[in-house]
């Protein structure tokens, strides 16, 4: 190991009177996002396989095989595709935040270098939610063409409401990214598998992803019970934008619910995060 000459490691004057470097919160937020996106880009292949495998298999079975066999009506794909997009963005947003968070707080403590940044600690949590949401939106946008490709022509599919579609996708991704923050901070590392079986799996199945909400008219109890599930609003909101001819919730109702849910989960996640981050 080289021994360091005295002048090398530090600038000469060190005093309490030295001026603090100006640190803008925006610049730090930018650096934090850059870090997460660089890591995500590096791990993209694994990430995509992990989050897109299930939706793509669903597309193959329910959007291609079953219609071919004549077990479902052709129009089913126009209800299915928006749901699959919702599932993909939900899965990837949750995983992008929750998995690293569980590791960080469970054993690696790698997040420590960011917790020492000269910004309010809550900003670190907020940045995680933003980075997760970006990954969620990207997953959703990848599944749209993939689904269209595998399922073939989808009756009533339109991209005329692209802005509304992107907005709902972003709101949905923010909501699930915030849910990822809650789960990632509140759950013990050894229970991460349980989280998927007990929380995520039912959420996907009862999230009106594979059937439209209106379809539950036949089972009224179910119809209102599923409204606690954020995925319902994402799937229905996307239906309202890309397959508006089929049954769907009013887009404003879906968007409003997502704003409330995203805010609520972000607030809850931030609280648990702060409790975990500062001893």
């Amino acid at each position: 190991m080289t021994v360091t000459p005295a002048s090398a490691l530090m600038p000469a004057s060190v005093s309490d009177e030295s001026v603090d470097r100006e640190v803008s919160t925006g610049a730090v937020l930018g650096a934090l996002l850059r870090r997460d996106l660089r890591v995500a880009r590096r791990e993209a292949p694994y990430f995509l396989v992990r989050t897109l495998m299930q939706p793509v298999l669903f597309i193959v079975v329910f959007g291609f095989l079953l219609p071919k066999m004549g077990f479902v009506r052709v129009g089913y794909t126009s209800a299915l595709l928006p749901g699959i997009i919702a599932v993909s963005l939900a899965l990837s947003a949750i995983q992008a935040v929750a998995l690293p968070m569980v590791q960080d707080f469970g054993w690696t403590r790698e997040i420590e270098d960011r917790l020492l940044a000269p910004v309010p600690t809550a900003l670190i949590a907020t940045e995680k939610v933003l980075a997760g949401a970006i990954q969620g939106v990207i997953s959703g946008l990848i599944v749209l063409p993939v689904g269209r490709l595998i399922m073939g022509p989808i009756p009533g599919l339109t991209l005329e409401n692209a802005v509304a579609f992107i907005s709902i996708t972003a709101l949905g991704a923010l909501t699930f990214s915030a849910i990822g923050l809650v789960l990632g901070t509140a759950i013990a590392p050894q229970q991460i598998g349980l989280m998927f079986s007990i929380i995520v799996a039912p959420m996907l199945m009862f999230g009106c992803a594979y059937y439209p909400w209106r379809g539950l008219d036949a089972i009224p109890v179910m119809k209102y019970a599923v409204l606690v599930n954020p995925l319902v609003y994402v799937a229905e909101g996307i239906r309202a934008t890309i397959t508006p001819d089929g049954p769907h919730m009013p887009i404003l109702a879906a968007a409003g619910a997502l704003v409330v849910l995203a805010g609520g989960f972000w607030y809850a996640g931030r609280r648990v995060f702060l409790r975990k981050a500062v001893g």
Partner: protein
Amino acid sequence: MTAAIQTRALRKEYPAPAPRRGRGPGASPMPASQPRPAAARGPIVALDSLDLDVPQGEFFGLLGPNGAGKTTTIGILTTRVRATSGKASVAGADVASDDVRVRQRIGVVPQRPNPDRSLTVIENLEFHAAYFGMALGTAAMRGHELLERLGIGDKANAKVDELSGGQQQRLMIARALIHEPRVLFLDEPTVGLDPQARLALWEILRDLHAQGRTIVMTTHYMEEADQLCDRLAIVDHGRLLACDTPDNLRAQAPGGTLIELILDGDAETVVESAQIVPGTLRVEARNAVLRVYSDRRGEVIPPLIRAAEAKGRTVLNINLSTPSLETLFVSLTGRKLD
């Protein structure tokens, strides 16, 4: 001279761990959801009314056995742990009300290296600098320079996992320095380093100190504290037992040679008969260890062994130490450092 660090009546309590229910080791308690039982044993006091003053530019050592409260103290001073009560300020800013400013002015080397393993070595430094508002160009230049000085310049583009433990520790030091902090905190920085790396790190720390940097280091290596620190605080059970320069502390060490007899059972029964052995200054018992301070060096050992055997005890081992920081530490805390 202004104080780099000041604490007043600093106290930290941790809630007592909830009693384990019969659900096996897999059922770890979730602090968020599990209410504390009504009949809890009291809270665990990690720090009890700690007052410290560290002037700017001092190399200050916190010395104590495991569980003494050293890491909790560093945690509070680096804003990573919230104190239960009391006040603390670092580099002129209050750790509770002005934590952002404190973080801006400090660098921290953790007990266990926690580099960002998803990034390369140089990226670790560049991003850390960016979190402190440093421009990328400056950060990259400084980062390479620091790695070079710390002897791991050739590892700049390596993955963190390719570094040895000692190299990771050096990366942690580089990270703590990249944003030019005024106060540097090191928590047991040489644990797990080989002797050569430890000496090299000492050199680096001496240089940083010579630059006028305030350094606070915890350690349980007496020699390290003695060699490096201007002043030492000896803490145990969250309390400050002594605080002075190594020389002054050594002068406070109880006179005479410290003789420790390790017995095969409780040493308490032997205290009385050991006290009347000529040449003993002071006798203490702690479990199976009988501690005797003697002004006749080892001469007292044979009569002490006889005294122990007369009480039905067998002497398993004997240690001798001359007056030193070590013997002062033992006399203050009743236990050894490691």
